[in-house]
């Protein structure tokens, strides 16, 4: 009987009434690796954040090393022996490897305040060799590759004597050789009696490193068991499951034949490869992809926020490759970003100011000074607020930050509607908003399509896409993997396509040097 190092006992957690986890119960044995899988939003991050002391569960208990465990902050978790290797690494790239390893506890010369350089380098070298990294401890971290930096993070976890190490999507930017080295190290950590929780969308990797698998879906534990009972197909079907069909408002029109947005062979090394898309008028075209598949990055390139090395983009017949957001807006393109707080809204400004911002030029009076006609701008803002049913006080005084998430999102959509775009890109338009507001946003999108607007709908909610779109493109590893027409929508097949590219990612030999 293996000792249970981490035990989750009926963990439940809700955010603002939305259930994120419900009654999750499983455990991980000492020296074992658990593969934790699930779609985006299935509850993996929430669960790990509870273990890491970032959130506190509403109900349930965690036992760590057979003792009750209630962290109140991330530092508690670190002290208890839990280490988190995040996707975004937490290193000081301006400092040396040794400095990074011991930044919170340098070895000193006796009681003097001075760093004992010899002991520092000796201990750093020991840690580095335990993760198979043969570089000098004095090397600045900024000179290391992403794979090497990740090993430094692992070494840092070892320096704090972590007994439970959580890896979150660790292989995304690793070459094949680096990935193999990582797996060897994970094996070794296991042999030392450390417990690993491995989270990834790369299912082949999960099968390769794990001893056991736990599948989450909609905040519930669907299944858990030893790895030999699992195959990639079974993992996918466990993750998808069968859910109650949600209702989506019906749309009466069918896509037209005019192309409003054309993307041809867009490539940006390290981000996306050879992307071609044709979006027609009155069409809702979905783009599905898992986190890190390149879907949001593609949207940024199309909108002109980021550049691409090769490829052609044209908006309503006008060439728009390597243009700026301002030029894109001028061409009739609008972009409802994924992150409304930081990118979509001026949180401190009034609702009307936010609504009018992209179309201020329309409201200027004639004459050289081009002064804004405020009453006219406010009237337009009011009209849009009414159409979208934005629940707010007087829109010229109410600040956006005091609105609910759903109403904030309506403001983002409203400001682009005022600009009367011909093509709209939505990136996760319904994330974190309540069901009622979601339904209204679906209605608005349908109405736009009926008016002739072409819509690019990016989402990681598969159900939403199958309910709303005329066509779905599936992205993975920065490429388009598959295309599905409405009559062929099948959640399992779409998900399979989304997982497909990742397994082969970086599997072609070692030529990391170029």
């Amino acid at each position: 009987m293996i000792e249970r190092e981490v035990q989750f006992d009926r963990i439940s957690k809700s955010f603002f009434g939305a259930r994120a986890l419900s009654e999750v119960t499983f455990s991980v044995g000492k020296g074992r690796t658990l593969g934790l899988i699930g779609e985006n939003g299935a509850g993996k991050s929430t669960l790990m954040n509870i273990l890491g002391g970032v959130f506190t569960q509403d109900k349930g208990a965690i036992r760590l090393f057979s003792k009750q465990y209630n962290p109140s902050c991330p530092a508690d978790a670190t002290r208890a022996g839990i280490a988190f290797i995040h996707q975004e690494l937490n290193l000081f790239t301006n400092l040396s490897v040794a400095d990074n390893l011991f930044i919170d506890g340098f070895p000193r010369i006796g009681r003097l305040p001075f760093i004992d350089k010899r002991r520092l380098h000796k201990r750093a070298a020991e840690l580095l060799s335990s993760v198979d990294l043969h570089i000098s401890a004095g090397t600045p971290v900024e000179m290391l590759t992403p794979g090497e930096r990740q090993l430094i993070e692992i070494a840092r976890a070892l320096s704090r004597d972590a007994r439970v190490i959580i890896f979150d999507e660790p292989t995304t930017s690793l070459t094949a050789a680096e990935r193999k080295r990582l797996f060897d190290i994970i094996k070794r950590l296991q042999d030392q009696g450390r417990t690993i929780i491995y989270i990834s969308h790369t299912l082949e990797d999960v099968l390769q490193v794990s001893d056991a698998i736990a599948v989450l879906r909609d905040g519930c534990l669907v299944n858990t068991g030893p790895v030999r009972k699992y195959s990639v197909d079974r993992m996918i079907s466990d993750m998808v499951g069968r859910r109650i069909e949600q209702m989506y408002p019906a749309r009466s029109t069918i896509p037209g034949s005019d192309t409003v947005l054309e993307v041809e062979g867009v490539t940006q090394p390290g981000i996306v490869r050879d992307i071609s898309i044709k979006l027609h008028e009155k069409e809702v075209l979905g783009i599905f992809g898992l986190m890190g598949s390149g879907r949001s990055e593609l949207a940024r390139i199309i909108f002109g926020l980021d550049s691409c090395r090769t490829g052609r983009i044209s908006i309503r017949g006008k060439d728009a490759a390597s243009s700026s957001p301002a030029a894109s807006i001028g061409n009739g393109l609008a972009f409802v970003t994924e992150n409304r707080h930081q990118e979509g809204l001026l949180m401190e400004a009034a609702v009307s100011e936010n609504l009018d911002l992209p179309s201020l030029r329309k409201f200027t009076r004639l004459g050289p000074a081009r002064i804004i006609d405020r009453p006219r701008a406010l009237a337009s803002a009011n009209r849009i607020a009414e159409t979208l049913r934005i629940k707010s006080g007087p829109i010229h005084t109410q600040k956006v930050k005091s609105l609910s998430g759903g109403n904030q999102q309506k403001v983002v959509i409203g400001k682009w509607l005022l600009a009367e775009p011909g093509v709209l890109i939505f990136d996760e338009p319904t994330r974190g908003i309540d069901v009622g507001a979601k339904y209204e946003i679906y209605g608005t999108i349908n109405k736009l399509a009926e008016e002739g607007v072409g819509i690019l709908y990016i989402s990681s909610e598969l159900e939403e896409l199958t309910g709303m779109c005329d066509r779905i493109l599936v992205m993975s590893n920065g490429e388009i993997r598959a295309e599905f027409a409405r009559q062929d929508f099948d959640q399992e097949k779409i998900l399979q396509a989304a997982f497909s590219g990742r397994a082969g990612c970086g599997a072609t030999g070692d030529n990391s040097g170029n």
Partner: protein
Amino acid sequence: MSLERNRLTHAVLNNTPLLLFALMFIVFGLVAPQSFRFQSLENAFKQASYVGIIAVGMTFVLLTGGIDLSVGSNMYVSAAVAGLAMQHFPVGPWLALILCLFVGAAFGAVNAFAVAKLKIMPFVVTLAMMVTGRGIGLMFSKSRAVNFPDSVTGLGSAELFGLVPYPIVVFAGVVFCAWLLLERTALGRQIYAVGFSKEAARKAGVSTDRAIVTAYVLCGVFASLGGFISVAQLGNVNAGFGKGDEFDAIAAAVLGGVSLFGGAGRVFPGVVLGAVFIQAVSIGLVSARVDLYLHPLIAAAFIFLAVLIDSLRNTYLARLSRRNIRVEE
């Protein structure tokens, strides 16, 4: 991307002060070789020492990602207080120096408190202290010049063992202490960590307040020390004393490779070279008989170059750190 090319780009971007210095030597060596006599170099070092000391203090603050615009006013207040104390009380030169440093430390502590505890932006805090300090100094001195006795001015022209002028000795001492603190103590490394990312430093268990307070207080102490040395050379403190020196100090630090983005730069050789650089350029320009009106423009061009390289360096490093979502092989 090849590691070799990385290494080269790295070496160039991290050693800009040395490269700028070499560039200057080559240019003036060709145009005005007479500017490199021993005497001129010693003069460059001597004149650089007081700005250099202030620049070392400024470096601490810049490393945390902040800025201190109040060092010029700090010099004025602390020197005026020391001078007035000598006029009205039986205070000797050494006690006056200690008093001067104490006022400087207090000045820095106010900045530190506002930045670390009240979380006000460093630019705003120190701009306010720049104005406040000047006002307090004028109030104390009734805007009259404060004269210093010979016991102080003697120090300004004295030489250690009759060889090295005292200002240079003090400058060297300050540089050594700052180097020791930054490179060889945990606190020093943590100052770099805070400058890279305050949030990441806090997550890693670093006391960010301690690092920030240390930086501003030391900056205050070094500003008043630099002021005292300048007084020892000039003999008096007038109402405009120290005005504009904050910008010379920032320029010296930036020319010495200290990043305005925080977290990068070294006191030795960087800031030392930066401080000497400015003086050496002006001596070189004089010996090359360049039109006096052009001097500020040429100095500005060098500063612009240094800041441009700093900015390029950051863009380059950001590109190296970006995590790709696909691996191109």
